[in-house]
């Protein structure tokens, strides 16, 4: 297995092609939302079907790999503004996650990953006793 790059930042605003795996892959754009109970990641993975999607969490790294079924192998483009290829991205999650309860769904080319936080990490409000 070749080296996997773990980084949270992407360059500029253009998805970069990462040559770290077997073939060139694209880094999908993600939105990350968080509250006291969970973190939710929303990623754009157009053209990926559930069979081609691999979501893998090994504390603390979340890896997402989406195979895009080649749809234009023998076509000569008249006009091309974007490339088509597999998606790959990894995230280092800073919170303690309850791995048993991780869930993900893929709809309309958007991957939603729910990462519920472990009980002991949830913020607790501490009652302050006043003398």
């Amino acid at each position: 297995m070749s080296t996997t790059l773990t980084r949270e930042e992407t360059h500029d605003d253009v998805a970069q092609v990462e040559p770290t795996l077997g073939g060139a892959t694209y880094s999908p754009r993600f939105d990350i939302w968080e509250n006291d109970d969970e973190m939710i990641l929303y990623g754009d993975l157009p053209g990926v079907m559930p069979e081609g999607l691999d979501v893998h969490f090994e504390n603390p790294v979340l890896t997402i790999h989406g195979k895009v079924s080649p749809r234009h192998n023998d076509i000569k483009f008249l006009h091309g503004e974007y490339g088509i290829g597999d998606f790959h991205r990894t995230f280092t999650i800073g919170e303690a996650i309850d791995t048993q309860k991780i869930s993900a769904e893929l709809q309309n080319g958007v991957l939603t990953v729910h990462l519920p936080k472990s009980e002991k990490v949830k913020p607790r409000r501490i009652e302050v006793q006043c003398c």
Partner: protein
Amino acid sequence: MLATRWQPVDTMWPGMKRLQEEMEQWFGRGAGMNDPRRFAHSVFPPLNAWEDDSNLYVEAELPELELSDLEIIVNGDNQLSIKGERKQPERENGSWHRQERGHGSFSRTCELPKYVDSDTVTAEFRHGVLTITLPKRKEAKTRRIEVKAS
């Protein structure tokens, strides 16, 4: 001639999603180095186009949207418009750590070549990929000519 008109007020896309390195010829007209589309950060969605003997195909990646969120219009001047709005998922009581995906309304118009029959355009939307099929007019379809050796 392809002229994509930008709607500067509405588009909130921070950058092109994936940029192809070279601009290729579109319908026989070249897109040179100074073509503004090369640095078109405010043009959304990025389009790919190809053809076969009977149709012209235009494709765009529009994740999160459904066909009902989109307006695809072909008007009398042979212009194709793709308009829509991508809304941010509603979430309360939390905060956004990171927002890389653009949201907002967008609109893009291109001129179609004369050989397209705008009455029979169809569109298909699957897994966030929109494919528009534009059949060519009968007289424009490529015909192979048999060459007989004499």
